[in-house]
């Protein structure tokens, strides 16, 4: 036993040494030049499309005017940020974006996992395939269509109110769309309806990769269906879940635009507007053509998203889980 540990230890040291050895010599380059060229293409692509545009961040510190350009526009320091953070409605849209982002992330993940596990338990292959196809089709609908359906279903004569009234649960049509308290649940449910099937695909794939021996031995040990789900499927999915969670955390502030923009109205604006809608109204509508303000809001979003990812990654690292970097 001891022997084997020391051996594997040695092997580890050796590989680490190998890894840290600088190896990029001319000879090596000659041998690998095709690979280098291929990866260089991606690096250049990244620089052009992801890093060069960051130069535009300079707009956030200027009072940028389209016709004056970067060079002609006046620098105003942190004025745009000051405007943003002294504006109650910007603070409110941050709250809304976070709230809807977190709701989507939490319910989106939980429901997708539950759905994938349950679907995996279905024995009839044709039925399973049919359900899977039906469930991910809404993903391909545009939000415009989904919102039209949701809007229609929730009006005073829509199907929801109609059913509630027919069953005598309510006497008068309930104005779902006019109640701020209902807006986040409606957004979350719409997202679930549209994306659950799609999100479940990756978990379904991960489930297929689980070694069937595990299930068999569990069965021999007397595990029932739910115990197998609890003690084998879920733990095996853990790395996938962690990675997806970390990546999706970076998207929390992209809680949505179309859905909230199309579904919102004056009465629910305090809970419906997201950062993106704020930017549209205050920075790129013609009356308020203020790219600087929009850029400032964009920088804020980037910084927060990056922080979130780093923190999540750090926690995952500490807990010994799968992680991004």
């Amino acid at each position: 036993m001891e022997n084997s540990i020391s051996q594997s230890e040695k092997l580890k040291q050796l590989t680490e040494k190998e890894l840290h050895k600088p190896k990029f010599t001319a000879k090596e380059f000659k041998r690998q030049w095709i690979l280098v060229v291929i990866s260089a293409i991606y690096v250049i692509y990244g620089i052009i499309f992801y890093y060069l545009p960051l130069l535009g961040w300079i707009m956030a510190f200027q009072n940028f005017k389209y016709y004056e350009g970067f060079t002609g526009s006046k620098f105003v320091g942190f004025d745009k940020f000051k405007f943003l953070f002294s504006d109650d409605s910007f603070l409110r849209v941050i709250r809304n974006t976070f709230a809807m982002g977190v709701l989507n992330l939490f319910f989106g993940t939980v429901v997708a996992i539950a759905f994938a596990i349950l679907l995996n338990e279905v024995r009839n292959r044709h039925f399973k395939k049919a359900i899977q196809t039906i469930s991910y089709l809404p993903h391909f609908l545009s939000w415009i269509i989904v919102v039209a359906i949701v809007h229609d279903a929730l009006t005073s004569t829509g199907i929801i109110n109609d059913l509630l009234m027919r069953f005598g649960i309510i006497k008068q049509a309930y104005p779902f769309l006019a109640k701020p308290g209902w807006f986040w649940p409606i957004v979350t449910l719409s997202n679930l309806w549209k994306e659950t099937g799609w999100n479940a695909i990756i978990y379904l794939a991960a489930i297929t990769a689980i070694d069937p021996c595990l299930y068999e031995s569990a069965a021999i040990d007397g595990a029932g269906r739910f115990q197998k789900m609890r003690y084998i499927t879920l733990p095996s999915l853990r790395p996938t879940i962690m990675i997806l969670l970390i990546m999706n955390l970076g998207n929390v502030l992209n809680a949505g635009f179309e859905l909230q923009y199309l579904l919102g109205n004056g009465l629910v604006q305090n809970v419906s507007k997201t950062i993106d809608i704020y930017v549209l109204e205050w920075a790129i509508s013609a009356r308020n053509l203020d790219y600087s303000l929009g850029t400032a809001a964009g920088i804020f979003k980037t910084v927060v998203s990056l922080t979130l990812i780093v923190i999540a990654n750090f926690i995952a690292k500490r807990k010994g889980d799968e992680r991004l970097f």
Partner: protein
Amino acid sequence: MKAKKLFSLALAAVMVASCVAAAGCGKKSKYTEFTMFAAMAGKEKDDDNEIMELIAEKTGVKVKETWLTGQDAGEAIGSIIASGKLPDFIDGGDGCVQLYENKMLVAWDDYLEKYPNLKEMYTDKEWDQFRMSDGKIYWANVFGNHYKEDTTTGHNGEAFWIQARVLEWDGYPTIETLDQYFDLLERYAAANPNMPDGTPVIPYTCLCEDWKYYCLENAPMFLDGYPNDGCVIVDYSAGTDNPKIVDYNTTPTAKIYFAKLNEEYNKGAIDPDFATQTYDEYISKLSTGRVLGLCDQYWDFAYSIMGPFAEERNDATDGQTYRLDKIGCDYVPLGLTINAGMEQEWHSYGDELNKASGCAVTTSCKNPDLAFEFLSRLLDQDIHDLRFWGIKDTDYLVDANGMYYRTEEMRDNWKSDAYNAKHCCQYSYMPQWRGRSKDGINCMMPDEQPSEFLATLSEPLRKCFEAYGAGNYADMVGSRVCDQQPWYPMWSWSNSISNETAGGIAWQKMGETKHYWLPKVVMSADFETDWAAYMDAYNAVHPEDFLAEAQAEAEKRLADSKS
């Protein structure tokens, strides 16, 4: 080797074939094709539209028009500026100033001298009002401009509208106040709760989506007897040299008006979905004829419901076929005031010069001279007739005196959306005339030709106008006839102020506050408390900053008119 050769031969053949095909597809049209974007909702024309083809034969130019799809004008123009992808012609609505500031428009000045048709549109003094800060003219408003003679028959502006059948049912009563208006709507709805197809009627609805929430918010201005300055009341009771800006949101009238709406909402007379409906839902609701009354501007709803109103329907519970316009669903405007017997200005007489927006040629246009020539040719009488009257003998007939007229079938054709898309081509956001034709006999627009106007009215509408002794819509509103003041309309200023000033920020915040609170107070169970809370929230966003800038603008316009 042989196989390889064969393969390359085949490949070459495919390439040649595709080149030929591509060349075939890219066949040049005979005409110069321009694009036009109007920051307004509108309907696209078919590519092989018949009158478009005829106009192209005469002018050598074809214009593909595109419209707003869902977003509002400001956002659309904002993204056009951001992308830098401009059409050849543009009507930027509220975004015109931004297009100018970003140097995306071609100045009209040189072309005005070259094309007298364009120059003729306005007097020198009027043209001067279009001049921007650099002293040049970049666009011309194309609407409501009468040639020689004012022949207005319509009322394009705002009013409380009511279906003709409701007035007829009550024996054409005099309706002057909100109380009388809602009382009649309620009584009618109680006596006639259903449409022929069995769906219930909606006594009153009100659009409050986005900027079109003016349907809800600006009535207090009119109810106090003032014209449509849009954002404020300009009180000149102290003399026309001494205009004073008044905020219509906080007047006693405003409170009475919203209290009335609140009362009606709680009685169930107002559409329960009014606060959350989208524009599309609003129009489809109106198209069913179920809505008895509403407050809106004519252009915003009337053109969209003409088609559905003229359709033959056979879904009645008694099996009879019917048409909505024939059973009196057409809307009649009422010029209500807060107290009976007041004078009002819901209808503005005379041409309203909105210098804030109009038709413009962009810097992306490769041949601006041709573009301006085209705009000018559109005002030639023959092409103008093609645009608005159609093709002689197909769309209109000419009697012995040279008077144009249409048959019932032709009129129905022009109301039909499908016929419009494939046959009619108004180029509706490009220069056009109203008023008397250059032939001195006809009118530029069919709807202003007195005989045509009366003939296009449905029977119930005609009877209604007769009962009130009104010759047309404007008479029906019965506004005071008076000259427009030099600062009028103030909305052409407020629609384009930016958030660079305190007043601009206040204006945006006032809008946000009203969007939230106005539907809320209407739907409130406790009006007084909510109204007080609304007033607190409203005053907290500093409307005084906005009003001060409005005051300065009114005085500036007054001074400009004198110099």
